[in-house]
């Protein structure tokens, strides 16, 4: 099998690879990440979960070069973010948790253009790409709005547009909905959902229901990678979830307790249907 690290070169089947990555924050006794190894295939949609302080945010920052590992190796599209951060950032975009502190410019369209300006994209091309990105997140008409007049969901969509304009193949989402209300979360998740088929996505979150469609879920606890499983297998293991401070949302939890596969039923309606179907088939067999 192809070495994942080598496989992240253009044309290879891997987008990101981490090999025994270790990192400690200065002045901290415990490493924030310890010997973490995993790889993302091109086009995969992988979730990352775990308790706060477990290393999720650290991982994100190692992937885009904001932090450098003390040992081990990170490769993104064939490049090392520690030595070539600028190059890597063309291929890997990060959507952070707090959209407020990620918006640089006084107007929406200027902010969306920010990444393109940094890349030295010529003006004509910028205008087109900005317009396209704004459309992709459904914010046509918002171009001249000021960030502080926007709702949380809208701000996060502006941030997303800013990422999309740069056209990275890989998207890393660092708890993108945790500061949003229900409506904002729905908005943002809808647009993220549209993207997962075009891009390789790494989605860090506390909300397990956002990962029902994920190919795999990585669990980070205490800086270690303690699991790399499909949603189905992860959600079915109640003890493991508890040990790692993971909480299933209501519907999958009910499903699990009632003996249904927890990752297949997402909405209350689907669960109700499944229960009705089972009762009916039960009475029919009597």
């Amino acid at each position: 099998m192809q070495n994942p690290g080598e496989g992240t070169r253009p044309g290879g089947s891997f987008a990101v690879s981490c090999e025994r990555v270790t990192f400690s924050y200065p002045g901290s006794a415990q490493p924030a990440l310890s010997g973490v190894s995993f790889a993302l295939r091109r086009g995969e949609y992988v979730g990352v979960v775990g308790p706060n302080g477990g290393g999720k945010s650290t991982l994100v920052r190692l992937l885009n070069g904001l932090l450098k590992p003390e040992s081990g190796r990170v490769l993104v599209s064939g490049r090392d973010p520690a030595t070539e951060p600028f190059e890597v950032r063309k291929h890997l975009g990060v959507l952070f948790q707090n959209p407020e502190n990620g918006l640089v410019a006084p107007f929406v369209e200027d902010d969306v253009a920010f990444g393109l300006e940094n890349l030295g994209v010529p003006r004509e091309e910028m205008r087109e790409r900005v317009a396209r990105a704004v459309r992709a997140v459904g914010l046509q008409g918002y171009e001249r709005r000021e960030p502080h007049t926007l709702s949380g969901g809208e701000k996060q969509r502006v941030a997303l547009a800013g990422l999309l304009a740069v056209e990275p193949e890989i998207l890393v989402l660092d708890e993108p909905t945790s500061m949003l209300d229900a409506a904002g979360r729905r908005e943002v998740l809808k647009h993220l959902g549209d993207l997962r088929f075009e891009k390789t996505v790494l989605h860090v979150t506390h909300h397990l229901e956002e990962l029902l469609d994920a190919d795999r879920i990585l669990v980070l606890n205490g800086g270690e990678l303690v699991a790399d499983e499909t949603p189905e297998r992860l959600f079915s293991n109640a003890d493991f979830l508890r040990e790692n401070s993971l909480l299933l949302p209501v519907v999958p939890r009910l499903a699990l307790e009632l003996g249904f596969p927890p990752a297949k039923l997402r909405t209350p309606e689907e669960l109700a249907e499944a229960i009705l179907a089972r009762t009916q088939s039960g009475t029919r067999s009597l």
Partner: protein
Amino acid sequence: MTTRSLGQFYPVSSPVHALDPRAKIIATAIFVVGLFLIDSTAGLLFVAAALVALVAVSRIPAGTFLRLLRPVLYIVALTVLFQIFFSREGVILFEWGFLEVHSGGLRMGLFLALRILLLVSSAGLLTATTAPVALADGIEDLLSPLKRVRFPAHEVAMMMTIALRFIPTLGEEAEKIQRAQAARGADFSEGGPLRRARSFLPVLIPLTVGAFRRADELADAMESRGYRGGEGRTRYRELRYRMSDAIALALTLLVLLVGIVL
């Protein structure tokens, strides 16, 4: 909730708003210098009339514009009073005990008051008719020749843009913190000035700490988006001089010349 404070951008479309920001900055600079070259009240009044006309053309409501001047009213009043009571020029208009009001003092007070108001108005008009991004772009462009002597023109402009972007956000944050502390029993209205100043610590401290944290997060976000200073950067906004800019500059010079002559 928007905070319309000193000199904030008023977004309407007008011929003045459409002018190139560099032209407006240069015009304002020339205006400020010119103000100090005018030595007659008549000249200042003429220039004031021209400025009023300009405010009208820029479609900024009178009320909004006058609010820009509110913070300086104290200084203006002090200046006028100082001149009135301490000048010994001209004829005595009336006496009151040992205080003498001379006609010269009155005239000088008026003159200085006008000049201060015009100074503030010109700066206010600049920021009211020029979007912060445009302003920063204009400044960066005008300062860029200085890059040759290693002056960080781009960084200065970027700092300004970011500061301008966060003013309303920090304003809202300050309000929010104030309300939270009020809910904990903080009272910002009681006691003498020293006591009141101290009572703002529970607002200032978290606001400042929060601002630093924001700065960190913003720096991370900017770097993550490929920011590495001004090198190799292109600009989304275009700055182009037009005929109207030349006309505006010419008019400014003309008005000032008339004012100086008067």
